[in-house]
Protein backbone atom coordinates (compact mmCIF):
# COMPACT_ATOMS: atom_id res chain seq x y z
CA UNK A 1 0.00 0.00 0.00
CA UNK A 2 1.26 3.44 -0.99
CA UNK A 3 -0.38 6.82 -0.57
CA UNK A 4 -0.52 9.46 -3.29
CA UNK A 5 1.52 11.72 -0.97
CA UNK A 6 4.28 9.08 -0.78
CA UNK A 7 4.26 8.70 -4.56
CA UNK A 8 4.52 12.50 -4.93
CA UNK A 9 7.55 12.52 -2.62
CA UNK A 10 9.23 10.07 -4.97
CA UNK A 11 8.23 12.12 -8.02
CA UNK A 12 9.75 15.26 -6.48
CA UNK A 13 13.01 13.40 -5.89
CA UNK A 14 12.96 12.10 -9.46
CA UNK A 15 12.73 8.54 -8.16
CA UNK A 16 9.23 7.49 -9.14
CA UNK A 17 8.87 4.40 -11.28
CA UNK A 18 6.49 5.31 -14.10
CA UNK A 19 5.31 3.06 -16.93
CA UNK A 20 2.59 3.39 -19.56
CA UNK A 21 -0.64 1.40 -19.55
CA UNK A 22 0.77 -0.70 -22.40
CA UNK A 23 4.10 -1.39 -20.70
CA UNK A 24 2.46 -2.45 -17.44
CA UNK A 25 0.76 -5.40 -19.12
CA UNK A 26 4.04 -7.16 -19.85
CA UNK A 27 5.56 -6.24 -16.48
CA UNK A 28 2.55 -7.67 -14.63
CA UNK A 29 2.83 -10.83 -16.67
CA UNK A 30 6.50 -11.27 -15.82
CA UNK A 31 6.49 -10.25 -12.17
CA UNK A 32 2.95 -10.88 -11.03
CA UNK A 33 0.58 -8.26 -9.64
CA UNK A 34 2.06 -8.16 -6.15
CA UNK A 35 5.66 -7.50 -7.08
CA UNK A 36 4.73 -5.19 -9.95
CA UNK A 37 2.54 -3.17 -7.56
CA UNK A 38 5.43 -2.79 -5.14
CA UNK A 39 7.82 -1.61 -7.83
CA UNK A 40 5.59 0.63 -9.98
CA UNK A 41 4.38 3.97 -8.64
CA UNK A 42 2.42 5.39 -11.55
CA UNK A 43 0.81 4.06 -14.75
CA UNK A 44 0.09 6.64 -17.44
CA UNK A 45 -2.83 6.36 -19.85
CA UNK A 46 -3.71 8.24 -23.03
CA UNK A 47 -6.38 8.75 -25.64
CA UNK A 48 -6.74 10.93 -28.73
CA UNK A 49 -10.12 10.73 -30.38
CA UNK A 50 -13.02 12.77 -31.69
CA UNK A 51 -14.94 14.12 -28.69
CA UNK A 52 -17.99 16.09 -29.77
CA UNK A 53 -18.95 17.27 -26.32
CA UNK A 54 -16.08 19.73 -26.12
CA UNK A 55 -15.73 23.49 -26.24
CA UNK A 56 -14.11 26.52 -24.72
CA UNK A 57 -14.98 29.61 -22.69
CA UNK A 58 -13.35 32.83 -23.83
CA UNK A 59 -13.51 36.25 -22.22
CA UNK A 60 -12.64 38.73 -24.97
CA UNK A 61 -12.08 41.80 -22.79
CA UNK A 62 -14.20 44.97 -23.08
CA UNK A 63 -14.20 47.39 -25.98
CA UNK A 64 -14.64 51.14 -25.65
CA UNK A 65 -17.53 51.90 -25.68
CA UNK A 66 -18.46 48.48 -24.28
CA UNK A 67 -20.90 45.98 -25.74
CA UNK A 68 -23.05 43.29 -24.14
CA UNK A 69 -22.55 40.68 -26.84
CA UNK A 70 -25.83 39.05 -27.73
CA UNK A 71 -25.13 37.11 -30.91
CA UNK A 72 -21.55 36.32 -31.72
CA UNK A 73 -19.61 34.54 -34.44
CA UNK A 74 -15.95 33.48 -34.38
CA UNK A 75 -14.66 33.02 -37.94
CA UNK A 76 -18.36 32.93 -38.91
CA UNK A 77 -19.09 30.09 -36.46
CA UNK A 78 -21.78 31.03 -33.90
CA UNK A 79 -20.69 31.08 -30.27
CA UNK A 80 -22.98 31.19 -27.25
CA UNK A 81 -23.11 34.57 -25.57
CA UNK A 82 -26.00 34.23 -23.13
CA UNK A 83 -23.65 34.99 -20.27
CA UNK A 84 -22.13 38.20 -18.94
CA UNK A 85 -21.21 40.86 -21.52
CA UNK A 86 -18.05 39.43 -23.08
CA UNK A 87 -18.02 35.79 -21.92
CA UNK A 88 -18.48 33.34 -24.80
CA UNK A 89 -18.67 29.60 -25.20
CA UNK A 90 -17.65 28.06 -28.50
CA UNK A 91 -18.81 24.47 -28.94
CA UNK A 92 -16.94 21.95 -31.07
CA UNK A 93 -19.85 20.88 -33.29
CA UNK A 94 -21.21 24.33 -34.18
CA UNK A 95 -21.05 24.90 -37.95
CA UNK A 96 -19.82 27.87 -39.94
CA UNK A 97 -22.50 30.21 -41.35
CA UNK A 98 -20.49 30.47 -44.56
CA UNK A 99 -18.60 27.18 -44.99
CA UNK A 100 -21.07 24.81 -43.34
CA UNK A 101 -19.67 21.50 -42.16
CA UNK A 102 -16.25 22.10 -43.60
CA UNK A 103 -15.38 24.42 -40.73
CA UNK A 104 -16.85 24.29 -37.26
CA UNK A 105 -16.29 25.15 -33.63
CA UNK A 106 -13.59 22.47 -33.38
CA UNK A 107 -11.64 24.24 -36.12
CA UNK A 108 -12.04 27.62 -34.41
CA UNK A 109 -10.63 26.10 -31.23
CA UNK A 110 -7.69 24.55 -33.12
CA UNK A 111 -6.96 27.88 -34.86
CA UNK A 112 -7.14 29.68 -31.51
CA UNK A 113 -4.68 27.21 -29.97
CA UNK A 114 -2.42 27.71 -33.01
CA UNK A 115 -2.27 31.41 -32.11
CA UNK A 116 -4.06 32.55 -35.28
CA UNK A 117 -6.22 35.66 -35.42
CA UNK A 118 -9.92 34.81 -35.17
CA UNK A 119 -12.54 37.12 -36.67
CA UNK A 120 -15.00 38.22 -33.98
CA UNK A 121 -18.32 39.71 -34.97
CA UNK A 122 -20.95 40.55 -32.37
CA UNK A 123 -24.29 42.30 -32.30
CA UNK A 124 -26.34 43.62 -29.43
CA UNK A 125 -29.47 45.57 -28.63
CA UNK A 126 -27.46 48.15 -26.65
CA UNK A 127 -28.12 49.07 -23.04
CA UNK A 128 -27.50 52.16 -20.97
CA UNK A 129 -24.40 50.53 -19.53
CA UNK A 130 -23.33 48.75 -22.78
CA UNK A 131 -24.25 51.21 -25.54
CA UNK A 132 -22.34 49.61 -28.45
CA UNK A 133 -24.55 47.64 -30.83
CA UNK A 134 -22.06 46.04 -33.17
CA UNK A 135 -18.39 45.10 -33.21
CA UNK A 136 -16.08 43.58 -35.83
CA UNK A 137 -12.51 42.83 -34.78
CA UNK A 138 -10.03 40.00 -34.33
CA UNK A 139 -9.00 38.13 -31.23
CA UNK A 140 -6.20 35.69 -30.52
CA UNK A 141 -4.84 33.85 -27.52
CA UNK A 142 -2.50 36.70 -26.62
CA UNK A 143 -5.07 39.49 -26.49
CA UNK A 144 -8.08 37.86 -24.80
CA UNK A 145 -8.46 37.40 -21.05
CA UNK A 146 -9.19 33.85 -19.88
CA UNK A 147 -9.59 31.09 -22.42
CA UNK A 148 -10.21 27.66 -21.03
CA UNK A 149 -11.39 24.46 -22.52
CA UNK A 150 -14.43 23.06 -20.77
CA UNK A 151 -15.59 19.73 -22.16
CA UNK A 152 -18.81 18.40 -20.63
CA UNK A 153 -18.21 14.82 -21.76
CA UNK A 154 -14.88 13.27 -22.72
CA UNK A 155 -12.94 10.05 -22.44
CA UNK A 156 -15.92 7.70 -22.67
CA UNK A 157 -15.20 4.50 -20.82
CA UNK A 158 -15.81 2.14 -23.75
CA UNK A 159 -17.86 2.81 -26.88
CA UNK A 160 -19.90 0.47 -29.11
CA UNK A 161 -18.55 -0.33 -32.56
CA UNK A 162 -20.71 0.80 -35.49
CA UNK A 163 -22.10 -0.99 -38.54
CA UNK A 164 -24.70 -0.25 -41.24
CA UNK A 165 -27.37 -2.81 -42.16
CA UNK A 166 -29.04 -0.80 -44.95
CA UNK A 167 -28.41 -0.84 -48.71
CA UNK A 168 -27.00 2.67 -48.71
CA UNK A 169 -23.76 4.14 -47.41
CA UNK A 170 -24.46 6.18 -44.29
CA UNK A 171 -22.31 9.01 -42.96
CA UNK A 172 -22.20 9.17 -39.18
CA UNK A 173 -20.15 10.49 -36.29
CA UNK A 174 -18.67 7.00 -36.34
CA UNK A 175 -17.36 7.69 -39.84
CA UNK A 176 -18.48 6.39 -43.23
CA UNK A 177 -20.39 3.12 -42.89
CA UNK A 178 -20.66 1.08 -46.07
CA UNK A 179 -23.90 -0.73 -47.02
CA UNK A 180 -24.79 -4.27 -45.94
CA UNK A 181 -22.28 -4.55 -43.11
CA UNK A 182 -19.49 -3.31 -45.39
CA UNK A 183 -17.31 -2.20 -42.49
CA UNK A 184 -17.21 -1.83 -38.72
CA UNK A 185 -15.79 1.31 -37.13
CA UNK A 186 -14.78 1.54 -33.49
CA UNK A 187 -13.33 4.25 -31.31
CA UNK A 188 -11.11 3.58 -28.34
CA UNK A 189 -7.59 3.68 -27.04
CA UNK A 190 -8.37 0.26 -25.51
CA UNK A 191 -5.78 -0.86 -22.99
CA UNK A 192 -4.34 2.69 -23.00
CA UNK A 193 -7.66 4.41 -22.35
CA UNK A 194 -7.90 6.31 -19.03
CA UNK A 195 -11.18 5.07 -17.57
CA UNK A 196 -10.65 1.50 -18.77
CA UNK A 197 -7.58 1.39 -16.52
CA UNK A 198 -9.52 2.52 -13.45
CA UNK A 199 -12.85 0.82 -14.08
CA UNK A 200 -14.38 1.66 -10.68
CA UNK A 201 -12.96 5.21 -10.52
CA UNK A 202 -10.90 4.42 -7.42
CA UNK A 203 -8.25 7.03 -8.22
CA UNK A 204 -9.74 9.19 -11.00
CA UNK A 205 -12.22 11.62 -9.51
CA UNK A 206 -13.21 15.26 -9.39
CA UNK A 207 -10.06 17.36 -9.09
CA UNK A 208 -7.67 14.84 -10.64
CA UNK A 209 -4.82 16.58 -12.46
CA UNK A 210 -4.46 15.34 -16.04
CA UNK A 211 -2.83 15.91 -19.42
CA UNK A 212 -5.34 17.85 -21.53
CA UNK A 213 -4.59 18.93 -25.07
CA UNK A 214 -0.86 19.11 -24.40
CA UNK A 215 -1.24 21.17 -21.22
CA UNK A 216 -2.15 20.48 -17.62
CA UNK A 217 -5.87 20.15 -16.99
CA UNK A 218 -8.26 18.80 -14.40
CA UNK A 219 -11.26 16.55 -14.11
CA UNK A 220 -13.94 19.05 -13.15
CA UNK A 221 -17.03 16.89 -12.77
CA UNK A 222 -18.53 13.60 -13.88
CA UNK A 223 -19.21 13.84 -17.59
CA UNK A 224 -22.71 14.08 -18.99
CA UNK A 225 -24.34 10.66 -19.51
CA UNK A 226 -21.94 9.22 -16.89
CA UNK A 227 -23.29 5.70 -16.49
CA UNK A 228 -21.29 3.77 -13.91
CA UNK A 229 -24.09 1.22 -13.46
CA UNK A 230 -23.39 -0.29 -16.89
CA UNK A 231 -22.95 -4.06 -17.07
CA UNK A 232 -19.39 -5.15 -16.35
CA UNK A 233 -17.22 -8.16 -17.05
CA UNK A 234 -15.59 -10.22 -14.31
CA UNK A 235 -12.58 -7.92 -14.49
CA UNK A 236 -14.79 -4.93 -13.65
CA UNK A 237 -14.48 -3.46 -17.14
CA UNK A 238 -17.80 -2.15 -18.48
CA UNK A 239 -18.93 -3.93 -21.64
CA UNK A 240 -20.51 -0.84 -23.23
CA UNK A 241 -20.98 2.92 -22.68
CA UNK A 242 -20.19 3.71 -19.05
CA UNK A 243 -18.26 6.38 -17.14
CA UNK A 244 -17.40 9.79 -18.58
CA UNK A 245 -15.59 12.86 -17.27
CA UNK A 246 -15.90 16.61 -17.72
CA UNK A 247 -12.49 18.21 -18.07
CA UNK A 248 -11.04 21.70 -18.08
CA UNK A 249 -7.69 23.31 -18.74
CA UNK A 250 -5.98 26.46 -20.02
CA UNK A 251 -6.57 26.63 -23.77
CA UNK A 252 -3.68 29.06 -24.21
CA UNK A 253 -1.16 26.43 -23.08
CA UNK A 254 -2.44 23.67 -25.37
CA UNK A 255 -0.93 22.39 -28.59
CA UNK A 256 -2.56 21.71 -31.97
CA UNK A 257 -0.88 18.33 -31.89
CA UNK A 258 -3.46 17.31 -29.29
CA UNK A 259 -6.36 19.66 -30.15
CA UNK A 260 -7.54 19.17 -33.71
CA UNK A 261 -10.70 20.24 -35.52
CA UNK A 262 -12.40 17.52 -37.54
CA UNK A 263 -15.25 17.09 -40.01
CA UNK A 264 -17.15 13.86 -40.41
CA UNK A 265 -18.63 13.96 -43.88
CA UNK A 266 -22.38 14.70 -43.80
CA UNK A 267 -22.36 14.55 -39.99
CA UNK A 268 -20.58 17.73 -39.09
CA UNK A 269 -17.74 19.14 -37.06
CA UNK A 270 -16.01 17.77 -34.01
CA UNK A 271 -12.77 18.07 -32.09
CA UNK A 272 -10.00 15.56 -31.51
CA UNK A 273 -8.91 15.95 -27.90
CA UNK A 274 -5.85 14.40 -26.33
CA UNK A 275 -6.25 13.27 -22.73
CA UNK A 276 -3.81 11.44 -20.48
CA UNK A 277 -4.49 10.47 -16.89
CA UNK A 278 -1.91 9.19 -14.40
CA UNK A 279 -3.00 6.34 -12.18
CA UNK A 280 -1.25 6.04 -8.83
CA UNK A 281 -0.54 2.41 -7.98
CA UNK A 282 -1.77 2.62 -4.42
CA UNK A 283 -2.21 -1.14 -4.07
CA UNK A 284 -2.20 -4.46 -5.87
CA UNK A 285 -5.81 -4.05 -6.97
CA UNK A 286 -4.94 -0.87 -8.88
CA UNK A 287 -2.04 -2.61 -10.58
CA UNK A 288 -4.36 -5.40 -11.62
CA UNK A 289 -6.80 -2.92 -13.19
CA UNK A 290 -4.09 -1.10 -15.12
CA UNK A 291 -2.77 -4.42 -16.48
CA UNK A 292 -5.99 -4.85 -18.47
CA UNK A 293 -5.26 -5.85 -22.08
CA UNK A 294 -7.23 -5.37 -25.30
CA UNK A 295 -8.32 -8.98 -25.31
CA UNK A 296 -10.10 -8.39 -21.97
CA UNK A 297 -12.08 -5.35 -23.12
CA UNK A 298 -15.34 -6.11 -24.92
CA UNK A 299 -17.70 -3.85 -26.79
CA UNK A 300 -21.03 -4.42 -28.59
CA UNK A 301 -21.85 -3.66 -32.23
CA UNK A 302 -24.59 -1.14 -32.95
CA UNK A 303 -26.44 -0.68 -36.23
CA UNK A 304 -26.18 3.07 -36.86
CA UNK A 305 -29.18 2.95 -39.18
CA UNK A 306 -31.16 1.88 -36.13
CA UNK A 307 -32.84 -1.10 -37.81
CA UNK A 308 -31.20 -4.10 -36.22
CA UNK A 309 -29.82 -5.12 -32.86
CA UNK A 310 -27.09 -7.67 -32.29
CA UNK A 311 -26.09 -9.88 -29.42
CA UNK A 312 -22.46 -10.03 -30.40
CA UNK A 313 -19.54 -8.47 -28.56
CA UNK A 314 -15.94 -8.22 -29.76
CA UNK A 315 -12.82 -7.56 -27.78
CA UNK A 316 -10.42 -4.86 -28.90
CA UNK A 317 -7.74 -7.30 -29.90
CA UNK A 318 -10.19 -8.70 -32.49
CA UNK A 319 -11.27 -5.25 -33.69
CA UNK A 320 -7.67 -4.06 -33.88
CA UNK A 321 -6.71 -6.98 -36.11
CA UNK A 322 -8.28 -5.22 -39.11
CA UNK A 323 -11.21 -7.56 -39.64
CA UNK A 324 -13.74 -9.64 -37.72
CA UNK A 325 -16.29 -12.22 -38.66
CA UNK A 326 -19.74 -10.66 -38.56
CA UNK A 327 -22.89 -12.46 -39.72
CA UNK A 328 -20.73 -15.17 -41.21
CA UNK A 329 -18.76 -12.75 -43.36
CA UNK A 330 -15.32 -11.19 -42.99
CA UNK A 331 -15.83 -7.49 -42.31
CA UNK A 332 -13.07 -4.88 -42.28
CA UNK A 333 -12.70 -2.95 -39.05
CA UNK A 334 -11.22 0.51 -38.68
CA UNK A 335 -10.44 2.72 -35.72
CA UNK A 336 -11.51 6.35 -35.40
CA UNK A 337 -9.23 7.37 -32.57
CA UNK A 338 -5.50 7.54 -33.04
CA UNK A 339 -3.52 4.93 -31.21
CA UNK A 340 -0.12 6.32 -32.16
CA UNK A 341 -1.04 9.61 -30.59
CA UNK A 342 -2.64 8.01 -27.52
CA UNK A 343 0.67 6.20 -27.03
CA UNK A 344 2.53 9.47 -27.45
CA UNK A 345 0.35 11.13 -24.79
CA UNK A 346 0.93 8.32 -22.28
CA UNK A 347 4.68 8.57 -22.98
CA UNK A 348 4.69 12.37 -22.64
CA UNK A 349 2.85 12.23 -19.33
CA UNK A 350 5.30 9.57 -18.15
CA UNK A 351 8.15 11.87 -19.11
CA UNK A 352 6.64 14.85 -17.27
CA UNK A 353 6.25 12.77 -14.10
CA UNK A 354 9.74 11.27 -14.33
CA UNK A 355 11.19 14.76 -14.67
CA UNK A 356 9.22 16.03 -11.66
CA UNK A 357 7.19 18.40 -13.85
CA UNK A 358 3.88 16.85 -12.89
CA UNK A 359 2.75 15.57 -9.51
CA UNK A 360 -0.37 13.57 -8.82
CA UNK A 361 -3.43 14.99 -7.14
CA UNK A 362 -5.80 13.09 -4.96
CA UNK A 363 -9.42 13.37 -6.06
CA UNK A 364 -11.30 16.00 -4.07
CA UNK A 365 -14.38 13.86 -4.31
CA UNK A 366 -15.00 10.61 -6.21
CA UNK A 367 -17.05 10.25 -9.38
CA UNK A 368 -20.51 8.81 -8.74
CA UNK A 369 -20.41 5.01 -8.58
CA UNK A 370 -24.10 4.66 -9.26
CA UNK A 371 -26.21 6.61 -11.67
CA UNK A 372 -28.63 5.89 -14.44
CA UNK A 373 -29.34 7.28 -17.88
CA UNK A 374 -32.69 8.94 -18.52
CA UNK A 375 -34.45 8.99 -21.86
CA UNK A 376 -36.14 12.02 -23.32
CA UNK A 377 -39.83 11.20 -23.59
CA UNK A 378 -42.41 13.31 -25.40
CA UNK A 379 -44.38 14.67 -22.45
CA UNK A 380 -47.58 16.68 -22.32
CA UNK A 381 -47.15 20.34 -21.43
CA UNK A 382 -49.11 21.00 -18.27
Amino acid at each position, binding site marked *: MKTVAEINEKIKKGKAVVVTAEQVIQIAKEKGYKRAAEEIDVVTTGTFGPMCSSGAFINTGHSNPPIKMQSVTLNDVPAYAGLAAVDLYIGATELSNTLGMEYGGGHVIEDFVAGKDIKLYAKSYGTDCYPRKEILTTINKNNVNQAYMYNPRNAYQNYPAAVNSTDKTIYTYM*GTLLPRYGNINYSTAGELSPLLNDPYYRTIGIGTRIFLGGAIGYVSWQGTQHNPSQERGENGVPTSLAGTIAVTGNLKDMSTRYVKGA*TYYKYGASL*FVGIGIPIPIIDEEMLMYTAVANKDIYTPVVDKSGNETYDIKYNYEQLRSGSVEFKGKKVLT*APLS*SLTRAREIAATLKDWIQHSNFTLSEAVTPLPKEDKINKLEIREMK
Partner: protein
Amino acid sequence: MTKAKIKIYFSKGNVGKPITYELVKKYDVMFNILHADINYGSEGNLITEISGEEKNVADALKYLDELDVKYKMYTKSIIRDEDACIDCGSCTSVCPSGALTMNDNDELQFDKEKCLVCELCIKACPIGIIKVEL
Protein backbone atom coordinates in the same frame (compact mmCIF):
# COMPACT_ATOMS: atom_id res chain seq x y z
CA MET B 1 6.87 -1.47 -71.72
CA THR B 2 4.14 0.85 -70.60
CA LYS B 3 1.25 0.69 -68.17
CA ALA B 4 -2.21 2.22 -68.23
CA LYS B 5 -4.69 2.09 -65.39
CA ILE B 6 -8.28 2.11 -66.69
CA LYS B 7 -11.79 1.54 -65.48
CA ILE B 8 -13.93 -0.34 -67.99
CA TYR B 9 -17.68 0.16 -67.75
CA PHE B 10 -19.82 -2.79 -68.69
CA SER B 11 -23.34 -2.14 -69.82
CA LYS B 12 -26.05 -4.81 -70.08
CA GLY B 13 -24.99 -5.40 -73.70
CA ASN B 14 -21.35 -6.17 -73.33
CA VAL B 15 -21.22 -8.07 -70.04
CA GLY B 16 -20.38 -11.60 -70.94
CA LYS B 17 -18.40 -10.67 -74.05
CA PRO B 18 -14.87 -11.94 -73.60
CA ILE B 19 -13.35 -8.48 -73.99
CA THR B 20 -10.34 -9.04 -71.81
CA TYR B 21 -9.58 -12.35 -73.47
CA GLU B 22 -9.67 -10.71 -76.90
CA LEU B 23 -7.35 -7.95 -75.80
CA VAL B 24 -4.81 -10.38 -74.42
CA LYS B 25 -4.90 -12.52 -77.52
CA LYS B 26 -4.89 -9.76 -80.12
CA TYR B 27 -2.48 -7.28 -78.60
CA ASP B 28 -0.26 -9.33 -76.36
CA VAL B 29 -0.96 -7.09 -73.37
CA MET B 30 -1.11 -8.19 -69.74
CA PHE B 31 -3.99 -7.57 -67.40
CA ASN B 32 -3.71 -6.94 -63.73
CA ILE B 33 -7.24 -6.75 -62.41
CA LEU B 34 -7.33 -4.43 -59.40
CA HIS B 35 -11.02 -4.42 -58.71
CA ALA B 36 -14.05 -6.04 -60.29
CA ASP B 37 -17.66 -5.29 -59.65
CA ILE B 38 -19.72 -7.04 -62.32
CA ASN B 39 -22.76 -9.24 -62.09
CA TYR B 40 -23.48 -11.49 -65.02
CA GLY B 41 -26.20 -10.02 -67.19
CA SER B 42 -26.17 -6.64 -65.51
CA GLU B 43 -23.90 -3.67 -65.28
CA GLY B 44 -20.63 -3.14 -63.56
CA ASN B 45 -17.07 -2.06 -63.87
CA LEU B 46 -13.60 -3.44 -63.89
CA ILE B 47 -10.52 -1.55 -62.81
CA THR B 48 -7.43 -2.94 -64.41
CA GLU B 49 -3.89 -2.18 -65.29
CA ILE B 50 -2.94 -2.96 -68.89
CA SER B 51 0.74 -3.37 -69.56
CA GLY B 52 2.70 -4.23 -72.69
CA GLU B 53 4.58 -2.63 -75.55
CA GLU B 54 3.59 0.98 -75.93
CA LYS B 55 2.06 0.43 -79.36
CA ASN B 56 0.13 -2.63 -78.21
CA VAL B 57 -1.38 -0.85 -75.23
CA ALA B 58 -2.42 2.04 -77.49
CA ASP B 59 -3.94 -0.39 -80.00
CA ALA B 60 -5.75 -2.25 -77.25
CA LEU B 61 -7.37 0.97 -76.09
CA LYS B 62 -8.28 1.81 -79.67
CA TYR B 63 -9.90 -1.59 -79.96
CA LEU B 64 -12.06 -0.80 -76.92
CA ASP B 65 -13.12 2.42 -78.64
CA GLU B 66 -14.04 0.47 -81.78
CA LEU B 67 -16.15 -1.92 -79.74
CA ASP B 68 -17.82 1.11 -78.20
CA VAL B 69 -16.81 -0.05 -74.75
CA LYS B 70 -16.74 2.87 -72.37
CA TYR B 71 -13.67 3.25 -70.20
CA LYS B 72 -11.93 5.89 -68.17
CA MET B 73 -8.18 6.41 -67.96
CA TYR B 74 -6.74 7.09 -64.54
CA THR B 75 -4.70 10.22 -64.89
CA LYS B 76 -5.24 11.26 -61.30
CA SER B 77 -3.68 9.92 -58.15
CA ILE B 78 -4.37 10.19 -54.47
CA ILE B 79 -2.02 12.13 -52.22
CA ARG B 80 -1.98 12.36 -48.46
CA ASP B 81 -0.22 14.99 -46.36
CA GLU B 82 1.86 12.53 -44.36
CA ASP B 83 3.08 14.98 -41.73
CA ALA B 84 -0.46 16.11 -40.93
CA CYS B 85 -1.87 12.58 -40.73
CA ILE B 86 -2.94 11.71 -37.19
CA ASP B 87 -3.18 7.95 -37.87
CA CYS B 88 -6.81 7.86 -36.81
CA GLY B 89 -7.58 5.13 -39.33
CA SER B 90 -10.99 6.41 -40.46
CA CYS B 91 -9.97 6.16 -44.10
CA THR B 92 -8.98 2.49 -43.94
CA SER B 93 -12.36 0.85 -43.65
CA VAL B 94 -13.82 2.49 -46.76
CA CYS B 95 -10.86 1.62 -48.98
CA PRO B 96 -12.01 -1.15 -51.33
CA SER B 97 -8.56 -2.14 -52.54
CA GLY B 98 -6.55 -2.45 -49.35
CA ALA B 99 -4.37 0.51 -50.40
CA LEU B 100 -4.95 2.13 -47.02
CA THR B 101 -4.22 -0.04 -44.00
CA MET B 102 -2.91 0.29 -40.46
CA ASN B 103 0.55 -1.22 -40.01
CA ASP B 104 1.84 -3.10 -36.95
CA ASN B 105 2.75 0.17 -35.27
CA ASP B 106 -0.80 1.44 -35.78
CA GLU B 107 0.35 3.99 -38.33
CA LEU B 108 -1.47 4.57 -41.59
CA GLN B 109 0.18 2.91 -44.55
CA PHE B 110 -0.65 3.95 -48.12
CA ASP B 111 0.21 1.60 -50.96
CA LYS B 112 -0.17 3.76 -54.05
CA GLU B 113 0.10 0.76 -56.40
CA LYS B 114 -3.13 -0.71 -55.06
CA CYS B 115 -5.08 2.56 -55.21
CA LEU B 116 -8.09 2.64 -57.54
CA VAL B 117 -8.60 6.39 -57.21
CA CYS B 118 -12.19 5.74 -56.15
CA GLU B 119 -11.88 8.81 -53.91
CA LEU B 120 -13.91 7.29 -51.06
CA CYS B 121 -11.13 8.00 -48.58
CA ILE B 122 -11.22 11.73 -49.29
CA LYS B 123 -14.61 12.09 -47.62
CA ALA B 124 -13.71 9.65 -44.87
CA CYS B 125 -10.71 11.63 -43.62
CA PRO B 126 -11.94 13.85 -40.76
CA ILE B 127 -9.08 16.30 -41.05
CA GLY B 128 -9.21 16.64 -44.81
CA ILE B 129 -5.65 15.75 -45.73
CA ILE B 130 -6.34 13.31 -48.59
CA LYS B 131 -6.62 14.92 -51.99
CA VAL B 132 -6.60 13.99 -55.66
CA GLU B 133 -3.68 15.14 -57.70
CA LEU B 134 -3.98 15.59 -61.43
